[in-house]
């Protein structure tokens, strides 16, 4: 008994030390940060507090309104079952949200963090390492969930005049459910890592996560497009309320937590405590199982990573390409210097092999398809809106949609360029030393990066242009003009994005999703955003003018070409020329 107590004391002491260390690291990061960063961090925290206050206030007002006895008389809606189901709804979202989102974070914290060698070599109980890693991983997620959930649950309590015991119990239940969900998520992580290498799982997860978040973010748009109207009706609200009340079923464990709190809040103590005891018991059991399993699985899984890292992968079918001579290779040998050729070939190889980067490249294609679908579903006509826009605006918008094919192609090309061009140099990461130590001219580096970003964006832009033009039945002249407009606009935009991304290149990243090119990269995005309508306007504007003046269209095309190409070429070349000198000095402290 005393040995067991000693073990527990030792474990909690170790957990405390590890968490304190993490806290000290965070504090030191803040303490040694630049003044401007400190300032913005404090502003961020103040903003967050204000945000919590606003959510709390709005929730309180809304819930008080929903609880008002007059409401059922006026709208014929009985919202009390809905109000009773709110805690269950929130706890269900919290539990499944933490379970799903913790997977990636736990994978990183438990298996891929750099301090594992140090921790496992130290006389620290493996349970303590597991618990501290688990807490480090889920606390940020818990914090985010609490920002949204606590104001609503507290607002529910205040508007319903709940007893004081309700409030601390809300926090306790939320934390317990978070631990249980994270424990189960950790079990899943440990099971998966026993079968697949952790690094590969992280790559696949990055890809799946990016795709899922993008699809989720666009589901609303697509749904609105399919339904025709985005205005929620009373019937829809009723449907939602009915759906939520369906969660209020006695056999659902997550409902025990919600109902238990409501019972306690409303003063039915016995039933409330019984339901909460069931909740705590079940959550503790889930966490305990995870903890006990972790003792064996965690170490063996982690140790396996060390072996897997060194394990040979099946030999690739001579992917070096050293013996293949394709048409593209022959052409590139004719026109491109060897270092540019090498860089282009290498970048394409890496882009297609790293799943985390592939996800960033696939998203513009999906966005493009989605918006094209919506574009055609709306009959390529400007949205009717509420009829408040002036006639001249609607006519201009209608005329602009004639060139919707070009606009859509530029839009998808822009999205792809945003991912490929702005971070083109930063993508080198810690490998940049190899380029810097070699006799590579900055101009060659920029040229290669330009090609690597431009070709896929152009291919995607043209793919959409061809597809939409075929569906719209655009004239041959308009089609070829469109091809040229897309090619030139994307070139100009690429020059702007690449140059500013290069000037602010950041090589210190581990996860490709975290690479960025700082403030200059942001400036590049803004400038490219300004360039696009300007350049598009220079190409298309003269066509409208000659049509309005009833001059032959030939002159419109000619003027558009001269003006548009001139601006695009200047933007494609000049910014790169300006940053060439800076590129030579990149990565020097």
């Amino acid at each position: 008994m005393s040995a067991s107590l000693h073990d527990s004391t030792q474990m909690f002491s170790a957990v405390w030390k590890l968490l304190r260390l993490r806290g000290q690291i965070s504090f030191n990061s803040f303490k040694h940060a630049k003044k401007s960063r400190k300032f913005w961090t404090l502003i961020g925290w103040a903003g967050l507090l204000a945000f919590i206050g606003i959510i709390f206030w709005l929730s309180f007002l809304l819930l008080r309104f929903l609880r008002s006895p007059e409401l059922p008389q006026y709208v014929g809606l009985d919202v009390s079952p809905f109000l009773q189901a709110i805690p269950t709804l929130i706890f269900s979202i919290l539990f499944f949200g933490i379970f799903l989102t913790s997977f990636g974070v736990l994978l990183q914290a438990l298996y891929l963090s750099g301090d594992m060698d140090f921790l496992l070599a130290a006389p620290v109980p493996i349970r303590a390492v597991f618990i501290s890693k688990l807490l480090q991983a889920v606390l940020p997620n818990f914090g985010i969930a609490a920002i949204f959930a606590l104001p609503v649950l507290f607002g529910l309590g205040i508007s319903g005049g709940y007893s004081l015991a309700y409030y601390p119990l809300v926090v306790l239940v939320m934390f317990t459910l978070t631990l249980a969900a994270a424990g189960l998520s950790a079990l899943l992580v440990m099971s998966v890592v026993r079968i697949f290498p952790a690094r590969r799982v992280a790559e696949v997860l990055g890809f799946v996560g990016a795709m899922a978040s993008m699809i989720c973010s666009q589901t609303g748009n697509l749904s609105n497009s399919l339904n025709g109207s985005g205005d929620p009706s009373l019937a829809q609200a009723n449907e939602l309320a009915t759906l939520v009340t369906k969660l209020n079923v006695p056999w659902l464990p997550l409902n025990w937590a919600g109902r238990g709190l409501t019972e306690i809040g409303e003063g039915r103590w016995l039933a409330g405590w019984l339901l909460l005891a069931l909740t705590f018991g079940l959550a503790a059991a889930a966490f305990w199982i995870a903890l006990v399993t972790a003792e064996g699985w965690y170490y063996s899984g982690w140790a396996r990573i060390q072996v897997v890292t060194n394990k040979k992968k099946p030999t690739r079918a001579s992917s070096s390409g050293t013996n293949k001579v394709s048409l593209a290779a022959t052409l590139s040998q004719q026109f491109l210097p060897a270092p540019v050729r090498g860089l282009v070939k290498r970048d394409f190889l890496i882009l297609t092999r790293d799943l985390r980067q592939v996800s960033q490249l696939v998203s513009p294609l999906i966005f493009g398809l989605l918006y094209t679908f919506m574009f055609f579903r709306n009959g390529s006509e400007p949205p009717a809106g509420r009829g408040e826009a002036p006639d001249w605006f609607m006519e201009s918008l209608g005329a602009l949609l004639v060139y919707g094919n070009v606009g859509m192609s530029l839009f998808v090309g822009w999205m792809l360029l945003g991912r490929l061009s702005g971070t083109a140099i930063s993508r080198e990461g810690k490998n940049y030393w190899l380029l810097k130590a070699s006799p590579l001219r900055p101009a060659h580096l920029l040229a290669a990066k330009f090609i690597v970003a431009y070709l896929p964006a152009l291919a995607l832009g043209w793919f959409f242009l061809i597809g939409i033009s075929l569906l719209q039945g655009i004239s041959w002249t308009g089609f070829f003009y469109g091809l040229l407009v897309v090619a030139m606009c994307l070139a100009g935009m690429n020059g702007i994005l690449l140059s500013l991304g290069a000037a602010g290149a950041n090589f210190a990243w581990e996860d490709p999703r975290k690479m960025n090119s700082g403030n200059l990269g942001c400036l590049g995005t803004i400038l490219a955003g300004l360039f696009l309508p300007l350049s598009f306007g220079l190409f298309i504007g003269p066509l409208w003018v000659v049509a309005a003046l009833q001059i032959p269209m030939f002159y419109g095309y000619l003027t558009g070409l001269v003006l548009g190409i001139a601006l695009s070429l200047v933007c494609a070349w000049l910014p790169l020329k300006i940053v060439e000198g800076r590129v030579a000095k990149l990565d020097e402290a």
Partner: protein
Amino acid sequence: MATISPLIETIDLVKKYGEKLAVDNVSIEVYGGEIFGFLGPNGAGKTTTIKMIVGLLQPSSGMVKVAGHDVQAQPLQAKSASGYVPDTPNLYAKLSGRELLSFVAELYDLDRKQAIRRIDELLRMFDLAEAADDTIDSYSHGMQQKASLAAALMHDPKVLVLDEPTVGLDPKSARLIKDILRQIADRGAAVMLSTHILEIAERMCDRIGIINKGQLVAVGTMQELRNLGQTGEASLEDIFLGLTGGAEAAEIAEILK
């Protein structure tokens, strides 16, 4: 010495990070045919000096010449003549060993057929032929170190600069690298390496430079270093500790026994 003019020459080299003086007036000459060992305690300025030699860092003042070319004024010529192996072999994880070498061949604009031959030769030499088509993220630290050295040797450089080349290598690989460096030097190239393993420096290097707190405190052959401190038959360790102030620490450690 095989050649009269040095292949690596640093003249009054200075590097400052803000107020901190990392390298203070370091002047070194390394000639073709010799292996030059660059020693110093942690944070003495070895890696900073090496990075300035290979063109990764710009000096605050002073000059670096590689194969007669000013690294600042003629970076492309200087870099064409040098090969560099960093202390941490960060290589493109998603390329195979063969693809990495092929890429390096294109960076240095090597003849295609010659490059293919050279790649096979280097992969065999470094015992990487079997793993040549595996991506580098599946390589062990030692294999990555060897791939990094193979990449540095792709263009048969006149000057080879290595930062801690034997760290993380097994005895067989360490021996292989030592033999290769000797061969390269014997063919007339200048080899400069930094190491903490004094035994390697003592056995391998023709001349040794010791840097402490950014300043070059001694340079010469083993015999010249012994004469410098009038230490007779002293080992390199004794000389090193004497020059870098580590001797007192050694005495304290002795007392603590």
